[in-house]
């Protein structure tokens, strides 16, 4: 990405004017917040970078309403501090990907929405897209659009909120977002099963999720990854319980008795459990370096097969979240992403998708970063994109591969 100049408007109206001019002049805009995820997606050319960083600050937050509204450029850290003061949190547990992208800036709340970043609690509490209640954004014609609102239940009109979530800045410039927030659990504990194979771990996690213990995190770290995360005793299958202290204790016992026959079990207290799950959300085991990193999303029981088949051919390391359905897979060879192999394997194992979250510019130019779609769905997506950004102003080509041509 080579953008010549960055402009950070101080108001929504100013941002809208910039977009109108860009649309009129045929200038492509790169949308950015803190700039920490610029290296994700297909490389593309843009005349200017339009930053949301000037649109900052919490605009409305009454903790008893469980909703927080902030301008899109507000740093996540500022929001998490305000939430912590009121003993609340984003239930979808967004991770901080700076370690894995190697970027320095301050991630913004708008980017949590635009990239739909969700952590381990996604399996019970939903993704960022489920927590996102309302948005304001500037569309590609420079119009300010409002959708959704500040309430939990809302079916008034088309749900453009979901559409904006995970659109990677290709549909509009988010200017304000409203997220649902929840009370922080009073207590948490993590039950660790030591020494399970990836396949056995999938069965154990499925069994755990099938109990009434309300597991709020189900992850599996093969031995090398577990060690890096500070866990001894071989591979570690992690099952987290959260809630009121007496309830967590009762459910821990229920879970233990449901998993009789599992390899060795131990429990981590609050102080050890919290930083461990933070590491998983941040994808810390694969931080640093430029080895290609895939984020693979499949049915939970398929994750370990997908990873095993790919790694048998390429070498690499993987760990599993979301009961096994979210696979973080880092390849050994820095120069080869094995994109075709990854996608073919997923298709053979029942379907799903893979995103090449990290790789060099050259690799990302040479292969589709986002999962290629069936022609009818791809065409539909393009029509939807054009209905929001008819001139193709925003992040052109970031989500759709151009076949490896170097952009003009």
């Amino acid at each position, binding site marked *: 990405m080579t953008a010549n100049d960055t402009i950070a408007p101080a108001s929504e109206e100013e941002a809208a004017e910039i977009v109108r001019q860009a649309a009129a002049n045929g200038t492509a805009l790169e949308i950015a917040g803190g700039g920490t995820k610029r290296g994700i997606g297909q490389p593309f050319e843009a005349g200017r970078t339009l930053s949301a960083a000037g649109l900052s600050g919490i605009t409305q937050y009454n903790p008893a*309403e*469980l909703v927080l509204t902030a301008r899109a450029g507000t740093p996540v850290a500022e929001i998490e501090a305000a939430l912590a003061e009121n003993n609340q949190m984003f239930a979808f547990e967004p991770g901080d990907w700076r370690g894995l992208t190697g970027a320095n800036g301050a991630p913004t709340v708008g980017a949590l929405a635009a990239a739909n970043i969700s952590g381990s609690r996604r399996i019970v509490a939903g993704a960022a897209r489920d927590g996102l209640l309302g948005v304001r954004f500037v569309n590609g014609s420079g119009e300010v659009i409002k959708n959704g609102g500040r309430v939990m239940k809302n079916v*008034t*009109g088309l749900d*453009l909120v979901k559409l904006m979530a995970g659109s990677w800045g290709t549909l509009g410039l988010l200017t304000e977002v409203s997220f649902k927030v929840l009370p922080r659990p009073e207590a948490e504990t993590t039950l660790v099963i030591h020494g399970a194979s990836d396949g056995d771990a999938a069965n154990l996690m499925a069994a755990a999720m099938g109990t009434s213990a309300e597991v709020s995190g189900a992850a599996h770290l093969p031995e090398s990854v577990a060690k890096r995360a500070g866990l001894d005793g071989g591979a570690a299958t992690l099952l987290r319980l959260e809630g009121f202290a007496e309830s967590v204790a009762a459910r821990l016992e229920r879970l233990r008795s449901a998993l009789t026959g599992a390899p060795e079990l131990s429990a981590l207290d609050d102080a050890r459990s919290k930083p461990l799950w933070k590491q998983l959300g941040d994808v810390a085991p694969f931080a640093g370096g430029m080895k290609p990193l895939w984020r693979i999303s499949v*049915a*939970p029981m398929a994750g370990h097969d997908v990873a095993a088949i790919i790694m048998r051919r390429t070498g690499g390391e993987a760990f599993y979240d979301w009961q096994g359905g979210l696979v973080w897979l880092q390849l050994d060879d820095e120069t080869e992403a094995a994109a075709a192999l990854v996608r073919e394997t997923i298709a053979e194992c029942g379907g799903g998708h893979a995103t090449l979250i990290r790789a060099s510019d050259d690799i990302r130019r040479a292969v589709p970063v986002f999962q290629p779609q069936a022609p009818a769905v791809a065409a539909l997506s393009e029509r939807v*994109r054009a209905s*929001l950004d008819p001139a193709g102003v925003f992040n052109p080509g970031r989500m759709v591969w151009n076949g490896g041509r170097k952009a003009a």
Partner: protein
Amino acid sequence: MNQIRFLEPRADIIAGRDEIRAGLAGLVPADCLVTEERELVPFETDAFTAYRRVPLAVVLPETTEQVAAVMRFCSENGVPVVPRGAGTSLAGGAIPQEDAVVIGVSKMTRLLEVDYENRTAKVQAGVTNLRISDEVSADGFFYAPDPSSQLACTIGGNIGMNSGGAHCLKYGVTTNNLLGVTMVLHDGTVVELGGKALDAEGLDLLGLVCGSEGQLGIVTEAVVRLLAKPEGARPVLFGFDSSEVAGACVADIIGEGIIPVAIEFMDKEAIDICEAFAHAGYPMDVQALLIVEVEGSDDEMDATLKKIIEIARRHNVKRIKESQSALEAATIWKGRKSAFGATGRVADYICMDGTVPLGQLSHVLRETSSIIDKYGLRVANVFHAGDGNMHPLILYNVNDPAEAEKAEAAGMEILKLCVDAGGCLTGEHGVGIEKRDLMLHQFTETDLNQQMRVRAAFDPAWLLNPSKVFPLDLEMRGTGRS
């Protein structure tokens, strides 16, 4: 009553009705096509019964391929299509028109796959909401969204309206529990969105489709999430001396970090109506009632309840009644879930569905009652308090046109009140025709034009469920129709 308008039926389609019916007959088995006037009548309306329009034909396909063939035919011939689940829409979302073909999913009732390890079920769109939970209950699982009409309403309809229910405070609404759909586009193209993974690739078209009121395509199959059933669940009744105090108690429960599975609210009028119908043992000497449901083992429920009871005592709770048996719990919920039906036995009513921020509950209840007083009407309030989703039932006599007009006017004022309090027009029932012309109170014309352009990306000729959701004059301008 100010009649809600529809687009004028197209004369050329009505004139060509015999050919259209003959064309449809070539696409589906004979028992999947309804064209007899008498047999078309049951499809003339939904649960918003004030409006009735007999459709040109009704097709009840058995497969995705049949839906695709009918959609392609209608697209080629410019015939409007009105999708229909079980016809339980309270907003008129399934009301047809004289020039439209209804495509109903009532014959698509197969449960295609239950996958406990991945905790998913794949169903055809005509499977009823409750049937999914019934099928997996013995194995310890359930499907979470539970609209009051769950015995009858279909998953296809639930996806169209993004249906909620009493328990979505904890478990979310349809969009949070839907993983994938098979959908037929306006021209018969079949697309698959999502699947068994927890998120889908590319733009979130699945999220856009859920709640689109049948205007983007027809869903024929769905993959939904199954959840493990809690160890136990117990509804508890809390009676208060005033609605406002009950509303403040709800805000405090949530504010102190307790998210029960459900917090339902009833005012005195609703208590009287529901108790007379269900004999649920609701206290009769209180002005407002909360049904709070907690989940877990007995010890866990006791511990959570202790915290809730402490908060309720601070609000001078007058009656606390815990259900002592599964039967009693079921009766408590029966009373609540039959509130609309029970109200229909004592009066005609229109039901509002605005949602407001929790901090505004007491204010909106107070203002609702002054609006109702101003019109000299009665109201029963029964709603999902935990997520601010209000359901004032405005009682009136349908045979008294003046009173009917007042009821409608009061309803519109209440919805505007919800929007002005920072909320929205509809939390779970949908816009349909009922709230269509209020959309400009919540949105600007620019907002709605953007939504309409997105809609047109799916259905460029505007054949799918026309005259719904968007103000009619905007739709006419967008399509050049009258």
